[in-house]
C-alpha cells in the first residue's frame, strides 16, 4: 500500500524534477508522474489527461498532487482533478527538496504527507551566506 504522487506544473518543470529525483533515488519509492500544462492549453481538454494520470499513479491509497504555483492554471487543474472521487491532497510551491522529502516518507498515509511536503519545501530554503 502506498500513496501516488502526481506533479501538475507549468511546462518544463514537473518532468525535470521527477528526472532528478529518479537519478538520486532510483527507484522512486512512490508511483510518480508529471503532467505539464502548456501555456495555451484548454483546461477542459486537459482534465481527461490529468484524470488518467491520477488513476495511473493511484494504488488505492490516494494521490498527493504537487503543483508549482498556487492560483495558476496547473494548480486550478489540480483542484478540479481532486473533485473526481479519488482521495487527493494538494500542496503548492513544489521544489526539489519537497519532492525528495516526500519520497523519504513514503511509508506515511496520504493525510500525513502534505505537512511533510510543506516542511521539505520550507526547510529547503537556506540563506547561503556562510
Amino acid at each position, binding site marked *: 500500500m502506498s500513496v501516488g504522487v502526481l506533479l501538475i506544473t507549468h511546462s518544463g518543470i514537473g518532468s525535470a524534477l521527477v528526472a532528478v529525483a529518479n*537519478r*538520486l*533515488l532510483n527507484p522512486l519509492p512512490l508511483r510518480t508522474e508529471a503532467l505539464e500544462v502548456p501555456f495555451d492549453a484548454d483546461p477542459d481538454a486537459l482534465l481527461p489527461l490529468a484524470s488518467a494520470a491520477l488513476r495511473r499513479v493511484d494504488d488505492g491509497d490516494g494521490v498527493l498532487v504537487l503543483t508549482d504555483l498556487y492560483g495558476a492554471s496547473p494548480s486550478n487543474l489540480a483542484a478540479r482533478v481532486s473533485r473526481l472521487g479519488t482521495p487527493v491532497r494538494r500542496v503548492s510551491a513544489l521544489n526539489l*527538496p519537497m519532492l*525528495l*522529502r516526500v519520497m*523519504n516518507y513514503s511509508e506515511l498515509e496520504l493525510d500525513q504527507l502534505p505537512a511533510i511536503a510543506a516542511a*521539505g519545501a520550507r*526547510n*529547503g530554503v*537556506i540563506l547561503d551566506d*556562510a
Partner: protein
Amino acid sequence: MIERDLTVSNRLGLHARATAKLVQVLSAFRSNATLTAKGREVNAKSIMGVMLLAAGQGTHVKLRVEGEDETNAADAVIALFDRRFDEDS
C-alpha cells in the same frame, strides 16, 4: 549508542547522490542516526539535513547511531563511506 569518526573520501563529497544513498541505506533501519561536521549536527536520515553539512572531500564527520539495530545500521554506513558511496570507480 555507537559513535564513529568517518572521512568523506569520494571526490564529490556528500553531494546529492551520495546523500540520497546514505539516507536510503539508513532508512532500512529503525535506529536514529546523526552526522556532525563543522560544529553542526544533522539528522542522517534526512536528505536536506545531510546536504546542510555541505561536506566536501576530506571532511571529517562523526556518526552517531542509537537504537535497537544500531550495530547493523552503523556497519552499513561505515561500509558505504568505505566504498566511497560506490563512486570514483
